[in-house]
C-alpha cells in the first residue's frame, strides 16, 4: 500500500432513462452540457485539478461516444506514463461474461485493477453530476476525522428530500442514520454519491456484499447501510457550491439556463479550476450585422444571423435571418432556418428547424425536446 495514495473510480455506465431521447445514443455522462462540455468533463476535470491522476472509468450503457470522448485522457491531462485514465468495461472470464449488477458490483469486478494500483484510499464518483469540487480537501477532512468512510453531502430543498439518499449527522458530522429516498425526512442533507473509502475496509465489504444473493450490490442501498450497522466511522463532508443531478429533460434545460443567470455559482470562467473537454479545432463564431444577441452563450464555429435571447448554443450552429431562439439549448450542428422560432426547447444534434416552424411559445412554460424525428413535451 502506498501511503496516502488516492485513486478515483468513476461510475459512468448509467443510462439516465428519464432524459429520454438525450440518452438514446449515449450514456448519461456523455450528454452534452453547458455549450461545449459533456457531463463527465466535470468529475474528470475535478480529478485532474485535484491532482488525482489514477482514474478508472466504469462503462456499460452505450459506451461508444463516451469511449471516443475519453480517448487516452489527454484532454484532462490524464494521459500519464504511470496511471492515468483507464476505461473499465464489463468483461468475460472462466465463469463466462457478466454485466455490472450495481455500483458496488462494478467496483467488485475490478478488485484486481485497484489492487494493482495499491491505493490507501478509493474515491467513488458518479459521472452524472455537474459541480466543481476539490477532492483533496475532502481527503484532508477524511484524514482529520480518521474516518473509515467519508460521504460528501449537500443541503437540498426539503421538498426534494424524497429524491435522494438522506443522511442524519451529529455535531461532529458523524453519520448516525442513512435513509434512501425517505417520505418524511428529518434531515435535508443529501448524499452526492461521492465517497472516500479506506480501500482495505471497502475491499472486505465488497467481497461480503457479493456473497449475499439478496443484495442489490449498490453503494447507497447496501454498502453504506451495512457499514452504518457495523458502527464504522462514517463522516459527512458538507459541500457548498453548485451541484446538480440532471435527471429529467426539464432539469437538464434548467441547469443549462442556470449558466445564463447572474446568480449562477458554477463559474466556468474561473481560470484556477478550468473544466476541460475534447477540443474540435473550430474557428471563432461569427455574429452578423443582422443578428441580435442577448444574455446567451455561444461556442466556436457558429454563424448567427437571427435573434438570440437566453440561449445556450453548442458548436457549428447556424441561426438564419429572422429566426428567433429564446430560452433554449441548441446542441451542435443545428440549423434554425429563416423565420423559424424556438422557445423553451432543447434541440438535439444536427436537427434542421425548417423555415416557418414554430417550436414552443413565449407564453408557455412547457419545455420541448426536439429530435429530427419527433418533439417531446417534458
Amino acid at each position: 500500500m502506498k501511503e496516502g495514495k488516492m485513486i478515483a473510480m468513476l461510475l459512468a455506465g448509467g443510462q439516465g432513462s428519464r432524459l429520454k431521447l438525450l440518452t438514446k445514443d449515449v450514456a448519461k455522462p456523455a450528454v452534452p452540457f453547458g455549450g461545449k462540455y459533456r457531463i463527465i468533463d466535470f468529475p474528470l476535470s475535478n480529478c485532474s485539478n485535484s491532482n488525482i491522476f489514477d482514474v478508472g472509468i466504469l462503462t456499460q450503457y452505450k459506451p461508444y461516444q463516451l469511449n471516443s470522448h475519453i480517448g487516452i485522457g489527454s484532454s484532462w491531462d490524464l494521459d500519464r506514463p504511470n496511471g492515468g485514465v483507464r476505461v473499465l468495461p464489463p468483461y468475460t472470464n472462466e465463469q463466462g461474461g457478466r454485466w455490472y449488477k450495481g455500483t458496488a458490483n462494478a467496483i467488485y469486478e475490478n478488485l484486481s485493477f485497484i489492487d494493482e494500483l495499491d491505493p490507501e484510499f478509493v474515491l467513488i464518483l458518479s459521472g452524472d453530476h455537474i459541480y466543481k469540487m476539490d477532492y483533496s480537501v475532502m481527503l484532508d477532512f477524511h484524514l482529520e476525522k480518521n474516518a473509515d468512510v467519508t460521504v460528501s453531502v449537500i443541503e437540498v430543498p426539503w421538498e426534494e428530500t424524497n429524491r435522494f439518499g438522506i443522511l442524519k449527522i451529529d455535531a461532529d458530522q458523524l453519520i448516525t442514520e442513512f435513509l434512501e429516498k425517505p417520505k418524511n425526512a428529518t434531515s435535508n442533507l443529501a448524499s452526492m454519491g461521492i465517497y472516500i473509502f479506506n480501500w482495505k475496509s471497502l475491499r472486505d465489504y465488497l467481497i461480503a456484499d457479493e456473497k449475499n444473493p439478496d443484495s442489490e450490490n449498490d453503494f447507497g442501498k447496501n454498502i453504506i447501510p451495512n457499514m452504518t450497522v457495523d458502527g464504522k466511522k462514517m463522516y459527512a463532508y458538507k459541500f457548498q457550491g453548485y451541484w446538480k443531478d440532471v435527471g429529467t429533460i426539464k432539469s437538464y434545460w434548467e441547469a443549462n439556463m442556470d449558466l445564463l443567470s447572474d446568480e449562477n455559482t458554477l463559474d466556468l470562467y474561473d481560470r484556477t479550476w478550468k473544466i476541460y473537454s475534447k477540443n474540435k479545432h473550430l474557428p471563432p463564431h461569427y455574429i452578423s450585422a443582422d443578428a441580435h444577441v442577448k444574455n446567451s452563450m455561444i461556442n466556436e464555429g457558429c454563424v448567427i444571423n437571427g435573434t438570440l435571447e437566453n440561449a445556450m448554443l453548442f458548436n457549428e450552429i447556424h441561426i438564419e435571418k429572422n429566426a428567433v431562439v429564446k430560452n433554449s439549448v441548441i446542441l451542435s450542428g443545428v440549423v434554425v432556418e429563416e423565420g423559424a422560432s424556438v422557445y423553451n426547447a432543447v434541440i438535439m444534434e444536427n436537427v434542421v428547424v425548417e423555415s416557418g416552424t414554430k417550436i414552443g411559445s413565449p407564453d408557455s412554460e412547457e419545455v420541448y425536446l426536439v429530435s429530427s424525428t419527433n418533439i417531446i413535451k417534458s
Partner: protein
Amino acid sequence: MKNCLGIINMSENDSTMGALTQNRPTAMLPIAGRYRVIDFVLSNMVNSGITGIGVFTGNKVRSVMDHLGSGQPWDLDRKLNGLFVFTPTYDYHSIHRKIGDLELFFENNSFVKYAKQDYLLFSKSYMLANIDYNEAFKAFLESGADISIVYKKVKDKSNAFLGCDKIHFDDDGVFESIGTNLGMDIEFNMSMEMYFIKKSVYFEILYDAVEKGNANYLKQAIFNNLDKYKVHTHEFKGHVFPINTIKNYFNANMGILKSDIEKDLFFSNGHILTKVKDEPSTYYKQNAKVKNSFVANGCIIDGYVENSIIFRGVKIDKGCIIRNSIVMQKSDIQENVHLNYVILDKRAKVSKGVTLIGDPSSPYIASKKATITREGEQ
C-alpha cells in the same frame, strides 16, 4: 505526401510590423481570433499528409517554443517523424556571424540529409492561406522538374504587396525569372514563397552557395541557381493574405468577416489547428450588442462590438463601443471605453472611459500587457 519533408522557415522581415513583432516573430502573431500566423502553414502541411516538419526559427524563440510545444495540437508528437525545431546557435561562429538563414540550414543539414524523404517543401509562414499541397506536389512530380514554386495571380491596386516576390513567364507561359515587386504592374504573379525541391538539388544549391559565399539567405541561393535547373510553377487559386505590414495584418483579420473568405480560410482543405486553451463558450450579457464580428471563446461581453475580431478570454464591460478593432487574448476593456481602428495586443488593459482612435491605414496599437488610463487617473 509521405515522401516530402516540410520545412518552415521563419526568417521573415518583421521590421514593418512595429510593436506587434517587438517580442515575437511574424510567425507567432495572433490572428483571426484564436490562431497564430504559423498555424496556417503547419495545418496545411499536416492536413496534406506531411508527417515530418522542421521549423527553423529566428532569434525570438520564446513564444515559438511556448506555442509549438511537442507539436501535439498538429498531431506532430510522433515517434516516426513529427516536429523538429531548430534555433540559431551562438557558440561556433559568433564572431564571424553572417546575416541570413543560410548558415542555420547549413549547420543543421543533417536533419535533411538523414530524413527518409526524397523531396522537400520549403515554406515561409507569412502567406496566410488554406492550401492543399497534394495537388501542387503531384503536378511537380509529373513535371519531372527539380524545383517548383507555388504562386498566386494577384490584382494589387493599392500597392499592398510591395516587396513580395514576383514571377515572370515568357510568352509561352514558361518560367523565366523571379524578382521583387515594386508595384509596376497592378496584376502580377506573386510567389507564395513555397518551394518544392528535390533533396539532391537542395544540397547542390546549399553547398554551392556556402562555397562561393554568394548568398546569405536560402532564397537567394535558390534564385542564383534557377537557370541551372528545371523549374515548375503551380498556381494557387484560393485566398492569400501576406502578413508583412501592419496594414496587411489588419486587412487580413478584417477579411475573415466576409463569409466566403472565412469559409475558404478555415474549411476548404481541412481545419486550421492551434494550441488548445480550454476556454468556456463566450457569454453575451444583458447589454451586449454585437454586429458583424468574429468572436472566440472565453469572452464575457456586455458592450457594443462592431466589425471587430475578438480573441479568446477578452472582457468587454458595459457602455463600451468597440468598432473596427482587433482585440487580442485576455485583454480587459472596462466600462465606457471607445475603440475605433485599434489593435490591442495580448493582456492589454484599457481603463474606464478611455477613447482610442486609429486610422484604417494606420491602426492605433497598444502593446502587449499595456495599461491605458485616462490622463491624470491611475
